């Protein structure tokens, strides 16, 4: 009786586990298999290649450049989003006339596909007929058109700004959830004790929000690290690979150049990097649950 009881939980978990393995573990197994194989451009395995694919990726100078830019890209967007989203969430958490409308406006970009947003930006950034230049010109801020996407020194920062804009809605949602979970009595008690706005923010809001900030950082890092559409739709990683991040470089490697072995090796490396972040995420949520 007790023996069969101890089996029941596992039996109940089994279907879900099988489904998850099929969806998650099987592709990883395939990826691992291809990454150590000699593979033709159509994904047919031609034999064992050992670590040759990994070595080829690591030896490619474009890889290091893309890795470095991925770091800037991820830190820039995740950090920038934090800086923008926190005040926005604080404002949206106040009672004011038209708050519901303001919340909808902040959330709206989330409803549009990322690729569509990126393509609209590509038009807006066009040097001769783009809206950004004509807006800046009519405001008198610039005299000659800026060719935003012509060189990495302007293209990459603009891409990061677009990244921040599309990441803000999700982050604000998390923060609003966090803010509404802070009990009003805490603020009331603080007011009675005569604490200033800054002290309330510093001593109550910020510490109680830290788990939500952490989660936002980890989740955004995972999304942004793998984000493909913004860069691909605006510059395809160009000119001369100067705006490539790992995931755009991966696409070129796999589907343009047909080096599926190297592409698999690279995506495994990216997977390991992200797995580290995911473990961090699990660790944080479990810590938050204990509180």
């Amino acid at each position, binding site marked *: 009786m007790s023996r069969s009881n101890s089996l029941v939980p596992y039996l109940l978990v089994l279907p879900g586990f099988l489904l998850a393995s099929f969806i998650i573990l099987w592709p990883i197994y395939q990826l691992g298999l291809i990454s150590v194989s000699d593979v033709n*451009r159509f994904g047919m395995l031609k034999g064992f290649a050992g670590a040759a694919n990994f070595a080829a990726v690591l030896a490619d100078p474009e890889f290091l450049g893309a890795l470095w830019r991925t770091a800037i890209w991820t830190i820039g967007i995740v950090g920038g989003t934090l800086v923008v989203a926190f005040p926005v969430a604080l404002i949206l958490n106040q009672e004011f006339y038209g708050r519901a409308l303001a919340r909808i406006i902040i959330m709206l970009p989330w409803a549009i596909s990322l690729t569509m947003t990126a393509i609209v930006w590509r038009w807006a950034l*066009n040097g001769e007929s783009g809206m950004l230049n004509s807006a800046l010109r009519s405001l008198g801020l610039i005299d000659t058109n800026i060719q935003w996407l012509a060189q990495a020194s302007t293209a990459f920062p603009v891409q990061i700004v677009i990244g921040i804009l599309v990441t803000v809605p999700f982050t604000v949602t998390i923060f609003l959830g966090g803010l509404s979970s802070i009990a009003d009595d805490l603020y009331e008690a603080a007011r009675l004790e005569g604490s200033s706005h800054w002290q309330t923010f510093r001593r109550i809001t910020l510490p109680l929000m830290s788990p939500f900030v952490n989660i936002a950082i980890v989740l955004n890092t995972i999304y942004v690290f793998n984000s493909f559409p913004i860069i691909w739709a605006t510059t395809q990683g*160009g000119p001369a*690979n100067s705006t490539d991040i790992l995931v755009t470089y991966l696409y070129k490697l*796999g*589907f343009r150049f047909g080096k599926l072995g190297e592409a698999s090796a690279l995506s495994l490396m990216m997977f390991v990097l992200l797995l580290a972040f995911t473990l961090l995420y699990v660790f944080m949520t479990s810590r938050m649950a204990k509180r």
Partner: protein
Amino acid sequence: MHKALLRQTALSLTLALGASLANADTLRVTVAEYSSKTGPYFEEAATAFEKSNPDTDVQIEVVPWDVLLQKLTTDISGNANADLSIIGTRWLLDFVQEGLAAPLDDYMDDAFKERFFDVFLSPSVMDDQTYGLPVAASARAMYYNKDLFEQAGIDTVPQTWQELSAAAQKISALGDDIAGFGLQGKEIETDVYFYYALWAYGGQLIDDDGTSGLDSDAGYQAAELYKSLIDANATQPGVTSYSREDVQNLFKQGKVGMMITAPFLSNQIRDEAPDLQYGVTAIPAGPDGDRGTYGVTDSIIMFENSKVKDTAWKFLDMLFTTEWREKFTAGEGFLPVNQEVAATPAFADNADLKEFTALLPDARFAPVITGWEEIAAKTSDAVQRIYLGDADIKESLDDAAASINDILDN
């Protein structure tokens, strides 16, 4: 008595089974979407084919050009490819080497072969076997804006790069938002835009010794020419942010004096900017009279693992009749690959297309080598660095040539 009945039943069962098998004859065709007309055209062809072959179900899968190779790769690695597919002819070697494309010669007779212009059929022939039929053909020529020429006081259309350079500077002087020469510096065919000058200076993509032709005098001179046009403000500003479509848009808006592109721009101008006064002429020649245009064909191939090859061939045979080719070619703005189609008034009397077909003797096709896409990307990267002024011309081209030679050695 019983026996006879049994036999009859068995016979009718077999017949029924046979009929249902024939019914299950499904022909899958992957086609690239060249324009919004591509899908409807192939659907119409499928319906017509099903009408004359009631046992066949033709399934057309329309894929945007940009993701065609990706879809084919995924389909093939999953063993789920269609029976027929359009591919870029420059990928054909990979398909043939891996045994994916079926040779078609057993199906073709001389009369069938004679439907085609040889210049377009020959890129699909490897080791004396025909592996694909040219479904779309295109070349490049120079478009020029007659109004801008007149305003700048230019009477003759440039025939050499020297003349083009002078004309481009005159036109650029007309205004801040007017550019003499539209120079493409981004995305697909950025390398090809550089080859026009490379060929004019007598260069080749792959030299006779089998190494890259970029690190040659022709390569350096071609790059210097383009860089000098950029530095003289004779091109649109920020060339590395202009894809072929972006430059075409400038041309349609009347902001660019000259640009080199494919015949389909004529159709776009007809539909979107009918008042634009433009002409089509040959790509300028170099100092020694060399010139070259880029010839491109897409082929339709039959997969070796297809189980309905005979049906697939019947469908191909229909697609390459004059009637169906004419409809397709006129709709998409390609060059005719069928001799009879070329003779129809729609094409024979088209002044723009005549300029393109006149260039065909100078047409150069992408070399048939594996890894061509990567070589093209290396070339694009190198010329982008030069256009940006980030790298010295010789250094940049020499570096690119070195990595291209590595690819060629593999």
